[in-house]
């Protein structure tokens, strides 16, 4: 059996009294895109920092691409690329120099070739001499992605790669990440956007309170935790409360869904717990997310 690209076993990371990561077991096989999905505070960013050696685990073991962390963190980092949540490009420096600096940091032999490749990937060849602060938000995110790929890493860590972006830029980024998946690159992507995880991840690991609470392909997670069908019921609060009580009495899971309540696993309803005017739709990863984490989906 192939060695996973990432293996975390029993990892604990505390900040004072807070256990940000609490007994995390996670492995990422080579060649897949694993979405690390969870609400804010679930421990996703801390997990990313543990993998880049910027946080040291209090307990447990971490191996990345065969290297034990934190002792061999530098060796592991040489083989991985990181796209951070926050834009930390050098804004006064040209696009090409931003790439060249990181090519040098990653010991790339042919810096010029790496810069040209990065520019092509980010579709910024025509803007190579422009300062970064002259670029649009979407261009800057593409440049961040290209910077993380400047040394042809075996593994990519994408930390909330589209957080705070408008839908058009997000779609642009997704197509670039899709291209990486098609190349067979191993990707670990943290996100709290359900749609992003569904769209990009081969597998999803759902995190809450510092540990993985569910793991599988999106369709498997939905089938296992949410069934086939969800029924959404709209109406005044009194009616929604009544629907909720009846559905729960029937053994069904119910969750809030904006102005409605959603009855999850509605196909199992046997005695009229789902009203005839309910809007039925296929169960979704969002249903799983809300049911298991108790958090509202974004």
């Amino acid at each position, binding site marked *: 059996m192939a060695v996973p690209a990432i293996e975390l076993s029993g990892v604990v990371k505390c900040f004072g009294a807070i256990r940000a990561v609490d007994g995390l077991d996670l492995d990422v096989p080579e060649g897949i895109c694993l979405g690390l999905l969870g609400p804010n505070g679930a421990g996703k960013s801390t997990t990313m920092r543990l993998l880049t050696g910027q946080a*040291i685990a209090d307990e447990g073991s971490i191996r990345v691409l065969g290297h034990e962390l934190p002792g061999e963190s530098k060796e592991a980092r*040489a083989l991985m690329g990181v796209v951070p949540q926050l834009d*930390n490009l050098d804004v006064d420096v040209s696009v090409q120099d931003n790439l060249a600096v990181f090519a040098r940091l990653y010991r790339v032999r042919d810096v010029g070739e790496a810069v040209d490749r990065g520019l092509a990937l980010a579709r910024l060849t025509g803007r190579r001499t422009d*300062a970064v602060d002259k670029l649009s938000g979407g261009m800057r995110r593409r440049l961040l992605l290209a910077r993380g790929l400047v040394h042809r890493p075996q593994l990519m860590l994408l930390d909330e790669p589209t957080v705070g972006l408008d839908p058009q830029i997000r779609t642009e980024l997704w197509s670039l990440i899709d291209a990486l998946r098609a190349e067979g690159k191993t990707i670990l992507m943290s996100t709290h956007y359900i749609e992003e995880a569904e769209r990009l991840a081969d597998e999803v690991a759902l995190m809450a309170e510092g540990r993985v609470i569910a793991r599988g392909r999106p369709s498997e997670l939905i089938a296992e935790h949410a069934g086939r069908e969800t029924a959404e019921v709209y109406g005044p609060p009194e009616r929604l409360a009544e629907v909720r009580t009846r559905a729960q009495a029937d053994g069904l899971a119910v969750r809030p869904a904006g102005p409605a309540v959603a009855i999850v696993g509605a196909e199992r309803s046997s005695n009229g717990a789902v009203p005839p005017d309910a809007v039925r739709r296929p169960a979704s990863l969002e249903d799983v997310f809300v049911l298991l984490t108790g958090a509202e989906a974004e």
Partner: protein
Amino acid sequence: MRRLEPAAIGGVMSREVANFRTIWRTTTFSSLLEPVIYLVAFGLGLGATIVNRVDGLEYVEFVGTGMVATAVIFSSALPAMFGTFVKERFQRTYDAILAAPVDVEELVTAEMLWIGLRAGVYGTFPLIVSMLFGLDPAPGMLLVPLFCFITALGFAAFGIAVAGSVAKIDQFNYVTTLVITPLFLVAGTFFPISGLPQGLQVAAQVNPLHHLVELVRHASFGFEIEDLIRVGVLVGFAVCLWRLAVRRMTARLID
């Protein structure tokens, strides 16, 4: 991978060079103009009206050589403090660098070396400007960039250690008021320390800036055997502060 890899240090310094290319004009302009202003104000003003000769030197020669130390501390400690804090806290530059195969020790060393090199060059500007005001060139002056470089390494490390220790950027005010200003005043830049009370004279002996001032004056007017000790003090200062800076930044950057 080894510690203190030249490739990692060079990579971090290349980032500094790329940024410096966007600001070198303003930095160089102020570094050249500042000593001119000081020399006109102190050297010609004070020197012509109140003070004529100090420690056997024309006042312009005394101030011109002393101001090298001023240039060094202000082009090393302050950029290190503010630059490090901004890159760590606001720009998140260090998060990006440390995600690459670079460790905190290499990062701090590269920052120190870059600031040291810059200060080594800018530290000589007051000397060059002083020549326009009558200071005679001397062969020993060729060593001044080296003295500035070594001193600036220590003060860069000091600035980085401070940046790695404070919680808010406005706390730098304490450091400039309580540490940097006294160091620069009790260095023998504008007046000889021999005129100070005994306690301050002793304090000056542990002030690295005072040793730099003496080295620059001796480079201009004749070295003494004690200058080897002065160089040793500056090297020791740089090494001690380097280790402190690495420790403070590791605590700040690695959770």
